[in-house]
């Protein structure tokens, strides 16, 4: 009897994670803890980084097998036994099958006000220019040796759009999903640090002081027509972007139509929160030590920074061009807001503008390019998917 007891204890110890964990796993858990610190203490995009980081911890616990795939086992007597997969495996189907990111985009659309964009359609060009970061990074990533599909997934980090990056990565480079998502959200949180130096370097003081005319009021008809027109125009042009753009515009239609307040509220709140939780945990769960602790991850982190920088530069430079062409009426600082980290990038434009001229309120004007960038990055994602998916 004592022997049985000793056996039971030995078995338990053998199964325990403390025995089975290796250095790589410990390192991953350490990285996850750093991310939790950044999210909770430094408040870096906590809504996503907290579940992502915790998912990372859970997936790297040996023996827990939370990411195990279900499989059918054939037992000795010939019968079949279905072994269920791990919790995180099932939750992560939402990411793998491209369900969660479009749903989050629907919530984003329900929270987005396209008014400043409709009032000033030129902002769409600034949103397009900021997506140059995506393509420049694509070239850089390909040059560094990533395959085209991987380069496409990494490049979308430059779109500064979490759900877009996750969606593309899940289809083009699933193994890098964790690294790409973490890079994307970390850089989005760092926008107030990355953007201002670039913005200031590319503009003159005189340009930064420009005060823009007030935006015209936008009628309800315009607001309701906008999502429909965008969906039709973009989806017919690039069908691969339909999932993202369509859901974004559906959410916006919920908001603008005014007749589905219940759906609007749910999309903005409950649905967003639920999907954010599931998405975050699933994304974190893909960051196993094998996937994450590679040189490629370092490359992704470096390229992500390049993407954001070039995107900011591209938007600001086109802003300068528009400043000249419009007869000094457009402030180039709003161009950098085309990097679609809503509303962070718009706030950065506001702050830099206000540093130069305290009575300058660029926020509303910068929101135009900011939300245009969301559409622009979804289009760019569609392009990448159409080429490589």
């Amino acid at each position: 009897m004592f022997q049985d007891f000793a056996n039971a204890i030995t078995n338990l110890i053998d199964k325990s994670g403390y025995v089975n964990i290796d250095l790589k796993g410990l390192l991953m858990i350490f990285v996850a803890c750093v991310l939790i610190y950044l999210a909770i203490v430094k408040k870096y995009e906590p809504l996503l980084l907290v579940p992502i980081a915790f998912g990372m911890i859970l997936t790297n616990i040996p023996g827990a097998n939370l990411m195990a795939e279900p499989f059918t086992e054939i037992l000795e007597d010939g019968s079949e036994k279905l072994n269920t997969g791990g919790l995180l495996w099932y939750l992560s189907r939402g990411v793998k099958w491209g369900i969660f990111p479009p749903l989050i985009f629907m919530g984003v659309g329900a929270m987005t006000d396209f008014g400043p964009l409709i009032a000033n359609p030129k902002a769409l060009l600034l949103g397009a220019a900021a997506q140059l970061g995506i393509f420049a990074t694509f070239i850089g990533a390909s040059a560094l040796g990533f395959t085209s599909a991987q380069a496409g997934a990494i490049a979308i980090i430059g779109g500064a759009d979490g759900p877009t990056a996750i969606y593309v990565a899940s289809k083009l480079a699933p193994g890098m999903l964790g690294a790409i998502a973490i890079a994307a959200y970390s850089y989005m949180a760092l926008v107030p640090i990355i953007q201002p130096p670039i913005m200031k370097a590319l503009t003159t003081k005189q340009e930064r002081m420009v005060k823009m005319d007030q935006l015209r009021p936008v009628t309800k008809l315009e607001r309701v027509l906008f999502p429909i027109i965008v969906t039709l125009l973009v989806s017919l042009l690039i069908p691969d972007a339909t999932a993202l753009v369509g859901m974004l515009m559906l959410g916006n239609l919920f908001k603008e139509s005014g007749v589905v307040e219940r759906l609007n509220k749910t999309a903005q709140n409950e649905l967003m929160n639920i999907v954010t939780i599931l998405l975050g945990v699933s994304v974190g769960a893909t960051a196993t030590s094998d996937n994450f602790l590679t040189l490629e991850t370092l490359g992704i982190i470096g390229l992500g920074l390049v993407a954001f920088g070039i995107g900011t530069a591209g938007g600001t430079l086109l802003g300068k061009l528009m400043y000249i062409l419009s007869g000094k009426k457009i402030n180039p600082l709003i161009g950098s807001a085309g990097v679609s980290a809503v509303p962070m990038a718009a706030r950065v434009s506001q702050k830099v503008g206000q540093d130069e001229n305290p009575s300058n309120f660029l926020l509303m004007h910068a929101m135009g390019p900011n939300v245009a960038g969301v559409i622009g990055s979804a289009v760019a994602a569609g392009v990448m998917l159409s080429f490589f998916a």
Partner: protein
Amino acid sequence: MKNIILNVTLVGISVVFLSLIALSFLVYLYPKIISFFKRKKSDTDKDIKKAKVKNPIKEDITSATEKQSNDNDIEDEELIAVITAAIAASMGHEYSSKVKVKSFKRVNASSPVWNTSGRYESLN
């Protein structure tokens, strides 16, 4: 290999720009199309009126100005209501219904609103 990279980049950038330019063009046309439809509608209305009655012009003009001043009145009323509510809110307990807003005039701020409210907050 290099071909694909160049291809994707060029196609990608052009597609993004093209789609957003097309979109911005459509949105730019919005107000023109809407006012075009509205003008068509009111043109046909005016034609019908002229055909029916012989003294339409004076009536139309007076009704048009009345309508405009009605609109202005409604806007002013709303504005008065909002300002009175703001006064009531900031007066708190001291407010009584005997306070009536007779007229209001915009005073141009000597310093931006944010600065003023910041100063106010740090004083109180």
